[in-house]
């Protein structure tokens, strides 16, 4: 960042306007792991999106003469028990797993924000009822419920798994949003808005919500990682996305019985989950630091 401090003799010093978001962006850019996370995740997402262009193989076509091929130049991650190219299936599976992560969080964050706004803004008995409900949702072992829904739906399609994951993961967002609404609604700028006759809706959407965005964004980012892990666990147990459609989780379903003859089947799909989740967690970490005004640029 040396260029910024160089003052050219004679020229008047220039001042750049620094907005909250601009400063956050600069802090984010200085967070090296987060930037690497963005790069890795984008590369992974692009490869998955361009799967038909990247790979010459069909993800679902079997090749019975090429079963349990160890990794080789033709099949960089080897093949599975019915001769399908593992690398290709990982790319196609990534489309499913990454989409589920993003969409489930979209559902969870919308629902969580809605509940948090209502509880935090209106307070009183509405707040008590909603928060007791959140307590209750927290007291369920989430994986047990996921398994039950998996059994009810006899394995899940993408829309079902997105809905179920979303409906079971909105609670932390609602608590964050509620807490931030509780403190912000006491502030002078809300008072001021109310004095000039702004409606509840306008106060919520234009005045309070933008100020509670930072924790929502961080929670959402980390939520994507959690959703990817949840989906993969469920599909690994055989209750999520059903074969032959690949997902990173269901590709590992057969791994336990094949581990001694084809360990690559257990390693590579898991490695892609790990890579995606680690990148997302780094991004979330970077965002958290970036939004925290106590982190001053240049101190790290």
């Amino acid at each position, binding site marked *: 960042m040396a260029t910024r401090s160089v003052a050219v003799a004679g020229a008047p010093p220039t001042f750049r306007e620094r907005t909250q978001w601009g400063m956050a962006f600069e802090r984010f850019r200085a967070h090296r792991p987060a930037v690497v996370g963005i790069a890795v995740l984008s590369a992974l997402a692009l490869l998955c999106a361009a799967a038909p262009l990247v790979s010459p193989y069909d993800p679902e076509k079997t090749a019975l003469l090429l079963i349990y091929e160890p990794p080789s130049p033709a099949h960089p991650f080897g093949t599975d028990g019915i001769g399908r190219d593992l690398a290709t299936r990982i790319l196609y599976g990534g489309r499913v797993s990454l989409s589920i992560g993003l969409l489930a969080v979209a559902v969870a964050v919308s629902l969580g924000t809605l509940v948090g706004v209502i509880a935090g803004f209106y307070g009183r008995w509405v707040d008590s009822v909603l928060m007791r409900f959140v307590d*209750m949702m927290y007291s369920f*072992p989430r994986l047990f419920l996921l398994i039950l829904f998996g059994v*009810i739906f006899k394995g899940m399609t993408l829309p079902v798994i997105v809905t179920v994951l979303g409906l079971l993961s909105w609670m932390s967002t609602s608590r964050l949003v509620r807490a931030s609404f509780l403190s912000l609604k006491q502030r002078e700028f809300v008072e001021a808005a109310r004095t000039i006759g702004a409606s509840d809706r306008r106060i919520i959407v234009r005045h309070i919500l933008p100020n509670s965005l930072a924790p929502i964004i961080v929670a959402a980012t980390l939520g994507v990682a959690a959703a990817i892990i949840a989906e993969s666990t469920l599909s690994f147990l055989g209750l999520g996305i059903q074969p032959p459609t690949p997902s990173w989780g269901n590709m590992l379903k057969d791994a336990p019985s094949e581990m001694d003859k084809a360990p690559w089947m257990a390693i590579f799909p898991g490695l892609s989950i790990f890579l995606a989740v680690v990148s997302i967690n780094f991004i979330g970490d970077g965002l958290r630091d970036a939004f925290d005004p106590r982190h001053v640029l240049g101190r790290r």
Partner: protein
Amino acid sequence: MGRFVLRRLLQALPLLIAISAVSFAILKLTPGGPLAAYEGNPLFTDEDRKRLEHAFGIDQPVPLQYLSWLGQFVRGDWGYSFASHQPVLALVAERLPNTVYLMGTVFVTVLLLAIPIGVFAAVKQYSWFDHVVTGTTFAFLSTPTFWLGLLLIIVFGLQLRLFPLGGIDTPGQPFNLFDRLRHLVLPVATIALVQLGSHVRYLRASMLETINQDYMRTARSKGLGERAVVLRHALKNAAIPLVTVVALDVPELFAGALVTEQIFGWPGMGRLFWDAATRFDYPVLMGILTVSSALIVLANLFADVVYGYLDPRIRFG
């Protein structure tokens, strides 16, 4: 304090009833049921169905069914498994100790390791030890439990042949402590490493915050040794929030146990739940859901009490 505990227990009661009611409602949505075995049997007439539905009580409205379940549940009659016809209470009582044995070992291992590692990493912030710890914990936090289990089996079970691939002990042998411990290592490592990641990171962050407090300077300036300052003044304060974090992780512990029991063939409650779920055996599912959510609620309650005990600033009002 006694009154506080009592009041929190009384508050937990409606929560537990609500949880069991919702579980009951969800289970009513599941297909199957006690008559599933007879469906499609040509000798099974509508009259038989009516008679059996009456015998099982499922011709009643769902809220009434729930109330009669609740009444029997508190009296210790948890119903009978549709699959094995054994009493649910006996099934759960048989499996729960194995899960508690697994989870308890994980819990103790994680705390014994997390505290020294977290403290040391914070005290030596930005040292190579701190960097290694921060990196490793981040990696474990991002690893799905089931995949970590598979990797541990491949490396330590199949390649190095150091540990058995599954089970709680070697079948058909008399009790042998060493054998038991060998079977414990991989399942415990699977859950513990992931949990260790989150707890170490939490404790490190909390220690770093405490280390910069004024009372740390005071403690040093009155001549206390570094050891006393770190352990007695910093750790004691930094560890308080950890109590809540540990309690909030209990559901994670259950999830970890279910996956791990599945991979390692561990005869615990998670496996029982899995078997019951795939057979639509809802008396068993209902029993497990109630027991595990009760344990989660109790863990939170316990954390609240311990928290208040450790932090005198919190008063039981």
